[in-house]
């Protein structure tokens, strides 16, 4: 029996899972929508992954969780590593591309830039309070234009003359887009303009003040949009690598971390059939009213968090 490691990346929009062997080879992977319910999404993920690898030759000996729901999912899957997504992405990419110097990452709600020297992360930045120029912005504009977001890139490439679209702010971009459509710009030009706007926004905000050096790897859901990739190449004057598994990098990265650390904890795919309930309550200990989250498995309390002081800790009910 060979050891295998499961990495789960639960983002706001999508949930990704990867099972790797000791040589960091991907044995199984799955990508599905979170749909606002991370617990349900992970159950689905586990059911799917279970059928995709050979249980006779591999056993999952440890689990790692990353992404914005990492804490919750880490508790449920008894993960040995709960890692932030910035580190997970960096480790995933540097494992696959040891020469990489710059990582562009655009996801559903956030975007980041990671600078690497000799395989080590030396600097990073992440977008702040606003989701401008991320996947959810492209998705909402695609609905407005009546085009599937998956077709965006292909359509963008047919444009000869991308329409300039204000890139600074989502609200301005949207009104600019409506205006440009009404005065008669073609749909492919607008879509190409949007891809360009995402890139401009990214380089001016997240990439501000950072020296961008090749090789560049572009990942996250938006890297599936070839229009954005081309716009990145045009803006930086450098080739941009998109890995076919780029959308899985976070899950892959946290699986690699788990393998490196070597800690083991028995894992059972039967979790997918168990009942997990989360309850949010407001602590009445003081005026701060901390939002406390409790997680129950088959009616039994697994963990609780969210309180700022000792008063609020309750692991009993």
């Amino acid at each position, binding site marked *: 029996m060979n050891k295998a490691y499961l990495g789960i990346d639960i983002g706001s929009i999508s949930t990704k899972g990867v099972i790797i062997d000791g040589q960091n080879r991907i044995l199984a992977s799955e990508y599905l929508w979170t749909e606002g319910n991370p617990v349900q999404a992970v159950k689905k993920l586990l059911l799917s992954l279970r059928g995709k690898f050979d249980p006779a030759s591999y056993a999952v000996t440890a689990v790692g969780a990353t992404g*914005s729901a990492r804490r919750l999912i880490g508790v449920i899957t008894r993960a040995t590593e709960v*890692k*932030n*997504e*910035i*580190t997970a992405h*960096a480790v995933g990419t540097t494992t696959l591309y040891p020469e990489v110097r710059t990582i562009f990452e655009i996801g559903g709600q956030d975007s980041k830039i990671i600078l690497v020297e*000799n*395989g*080590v*992360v*030396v*600097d*990073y*930045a*992440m977008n*702040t*309070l606003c989701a401008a120029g991320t996947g959810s912005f492209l998705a909402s504009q695609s609905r407005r234009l009546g085009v599937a977001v998956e077709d965006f890139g292909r359509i963008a490439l047919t444009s000869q003359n991308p329409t300039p679209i204000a890139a600074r702010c989502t609200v301005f971009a949207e009104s600019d887009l409506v205006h440009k459509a009404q005065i008669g710009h073609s749909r492919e030009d607008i879509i190409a303009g949007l891809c360009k706007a995402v890139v401009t926004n990214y380089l001016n905000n997240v990439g*501000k*003040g950072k*020296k961008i050096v090749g090789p560049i790897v572009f990942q996250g859901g938006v890297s599936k949009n070839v229009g954005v990739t081309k716009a990145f190449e045009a803006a930086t004057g450098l080739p941009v690598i998109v890995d076919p598994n780029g959308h899985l990098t976070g899950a892959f990265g946290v699986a690699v971390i788990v393998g490196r650390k070597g800690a083991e904890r028995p894992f059972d795919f039967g979790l997918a059939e168990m009942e997990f309930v989360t309850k949010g309550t407001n602590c009445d200990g*003081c*005026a*701060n*009213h901390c939002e406390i989250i409790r997680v129950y498995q088959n009616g039994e309390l697994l963990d609780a968090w969210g309180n700022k002081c000792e008063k609020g800790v309750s692991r009993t009910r």
Partner: protein
Amino acid sequence: MTKKRKVTFPHFGDYCVPIEYLMRQGLDMDYVTPPPMSKRTLELGSKYSPDYVCAPFKIHLGCYIEAIEKGADTLLQTGGVCRLGFYGELHEQILRDLGYQVDFINLAMANYSKPYTFYREFKKINPDLSLPKVSGALLTTIRMVESMDAADDYIRRNIGFEQEEGAFDRLRADFLNSLALVESQKELRYLAGNYMKRFKAIPVLKPKRPLRVGVVGEYYSVMDPFSNHYIEREMAKMGAVVARWMNISNSLFHYPKKEIQARIRGYARYNMGATSMATIERALRFAKKGYDGIIHIKSFGCTPETDAMPVLQNISADYKIPILYFSFDSQTADAGIQTRLEAFYDMMTMRKGAAATG
């Protein structure tokens, strides 16, 4: 003889302790400490503030309202070298519009180069004020602030390595409680010395070359842990030495203006106001001393600190030191902050590891 005033000042870290001393001992007023800051403070403050004003304004307004509910009738506001200079007037106006009948001591009306003008402002509220008494209490207040700042500096550098979880926090709470009971400068001197010994006696287990993180940024948000989501503590608890120069002692009592201007000449030649120059100077110093990273903290929309950021980026590039930027408004979710801090810690660890082996 008029009725004793019940004065209050917004929370600012734990500086309410020396401020209370000054009010009671020097100005012969009662002091109302605002309730501990909470989401309610933020909600109240945000509700009645202009949306685009910076977070400290909103927090102050929330503190005032909560202190008035506790019985305060006289509100104290300081002057300042940015928008803060106008805060007192605006707070007063908003509170009056809300129907609160309170008096305001607005130190923005005083002139910082003429200490006597402060006395004049306080005298408006309490005509029986005695100058020698005020001066004596002021001196003790200054010493009290210095002793707190010295203790906090030591705690930031060591709390990440305490052997017994909570040892520093417990002793610090004890220290503040004792400070609140001090009556003379002599007593204070003894107390401060005694507690400093006890802080230093707390067992810590520090690695030979621990991660070192320098913290710089805007006056209020950097010094007030509630405003910055206890970021220094979170960072330290991951296992790092946290250093910060900016505090009341260094900025108000011992501010080396000329030295600062001279040291950063290569990076900034004109004063960009408020704390921007000190931010740049400290960041440069942390970089030169080989710190592993810098955290820059400001409230959203703070102009002087926004102006300092391009300079920090130059320092970051020249000295190859990573800088993590935080901008706080009245948001309450900690998840995004935690993610960035964790990643910053991981990055510093990996860089240090690579430097040691490579």
